[in-house]
């Protein structure tokens, strides 16, 4: 049993509640105990680091100090943007001069004793794939998946220290382990347009459109992603992308946790397929029902 502090991130309370819920559900099913960071606050996301790095580190470090106060040394988050900020704060605060500047903004200083990982990394590195396979009740046989990691889950490699920075395989391996056919998706780490959706929608339409186009060419029935912002750009904005690019994409964009939960036979209410904007039923219909043996 792993006991890890859990940092949900703001989007998990709003635009990506289905990611948060399905993450909690699969961790419970795989004996990973998550304890929410007490009274956690926003990591500052992209806006903070584009304004100032000390401010950004302080906003992240408040949460890491909360983890220290809980007597824990490891925190996991589902969101790559939170992950990147929390890890950057940890990394930069190894420099004593930077650390004192960031701590000067905080009520409670951060002593830098916490290791930050993505939930995906916890699954990939601390859970035996054979154990996951043994728990599968609905193998994903018959569905073709493009695994999209987004730009910062693995980059830059010196900071993220997880998987491969050009060709990550953690989600591919996970989806293959639960029976899906994984297409070799060449744009795994290309940027979707990140947080420009609101101020410069045209940029997101172009970059996310390129991803959808590549997935379609490979015959993918759906994408899986590990990032709330990527998911939102590809799913919620898919209609805008179609209008802007004169396209007709209808590609469902799942969180990998939703399909993992489906394979593990978890309660559908915890998986939140109804939250997806692009109707996932056709893609889910590709999954062959297991032959009745009993």
């Amino acid at each position, binding site marked *: 049993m792993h006991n890890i502090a859990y940092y949900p991130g703001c989007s998990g309370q709003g635009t990506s509640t289905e990611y948060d819920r399905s993450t909690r559900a699969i961790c419970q099913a795989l004996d990973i105990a998550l304890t929410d960071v007490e009274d956690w606050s926003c990591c500052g996301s992209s806006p903070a680091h584009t304004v100032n790095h000390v401010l950004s580190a*302080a906003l992240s470090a*408040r949460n890491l100090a909360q983890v220290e106060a809980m007597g824990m040394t490891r925190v996991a988050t589902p969101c790559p943007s939170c992950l990147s900020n929390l890890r950057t704060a940890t990394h930069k605060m190894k420099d004593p001069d930077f650390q004192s*500047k960031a701590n000067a*903004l905080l009520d409670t200083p951060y002593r830098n004793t916490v290791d930050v990982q993505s939930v995906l990394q916890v699954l990939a590195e601390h859970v035996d794939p054979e154990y996951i396979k043994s728990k599968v009740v609905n193998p994903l046989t018959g569905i073709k998946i493009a695994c999209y990691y987004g730009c910062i889950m693995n*980059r830059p490699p010196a900071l993220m220290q997880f998987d491969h920075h050009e060709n990550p395989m953690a989600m591919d391996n996970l989806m293959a382990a639960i029976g899906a056919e994984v297409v070799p998706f060449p744009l795994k780490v290309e940027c979707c347009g990140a947080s420009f959706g609101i101020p410069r929608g045209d*940029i997101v339409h172009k970059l996310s459109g390129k991803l959808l186009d590549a997935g379609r060419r490979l015959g993918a029935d759906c994408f899986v992603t590990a990032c709330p912002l990527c998911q939102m750009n590809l799913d919620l904005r898919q209609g805008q992308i179609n209008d802007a690019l004169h396209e007709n994409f209808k590609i469902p964009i799942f969180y990998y946790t939703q399909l993992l939960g489906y394979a593990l036979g978890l309660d559908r209410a915890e998986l939140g397929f109804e939250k997806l904007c692009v109707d996932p039923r056709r893609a889910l219909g590709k999954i062959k029902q297991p032959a009745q043996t009993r």
Partner: protein
Amino acid sequence: MQIFDLAAADHAFIAEVQARSHQDIKTCYQCGNCTAGCPYTFAYDYSVSQIMRLIQTGQKDAVLKSRSIWLCGSCQSCTTRCPNNIDVALIMDVCRHMAREAGYATERAVKVFADSFLNSVSRYGRAFELGLMTEYMARSGRIFTDVDLAPSALMRNKLPFKPHRIQGRDQVARIFERFRKGGAHA
């Protein structure tokens, strides 16, 4: 073609970018690998390798008034692929910090979005999506931003109407307060 006066290099600017980014700007030999991998070049006025060259040659105004530094998505492709291990994305960030401090915002909507986001965090301790959208629309004047998405998002309960106010929101507000008073650089 744009011509820059190399004799008019602003050496203090070069030194400041180096000091704030802890990167050795002169090791860039213009291979263009950063630009080759940059997904945003189509929207930039100067490509990222051109920004690097403009910094090397001390062209402060051109850099700080460029659109590119506001449109970098921090996707880390340049940093990951630089053969000389220059953290190029960090340099783009530092230039954006300096542009803000100098009062420039050539992509004003991008700046207003970031400000609205952080105001929301400062107020509640967490980002409140509907609130920050409202502030963004009011301050940018772009009142129809993404209204087409509203039915889809609201129908799926993806946009809570009320913010999550955390217990320690004063602690978070104090982070912003101390930052504004101290003007911390790094």
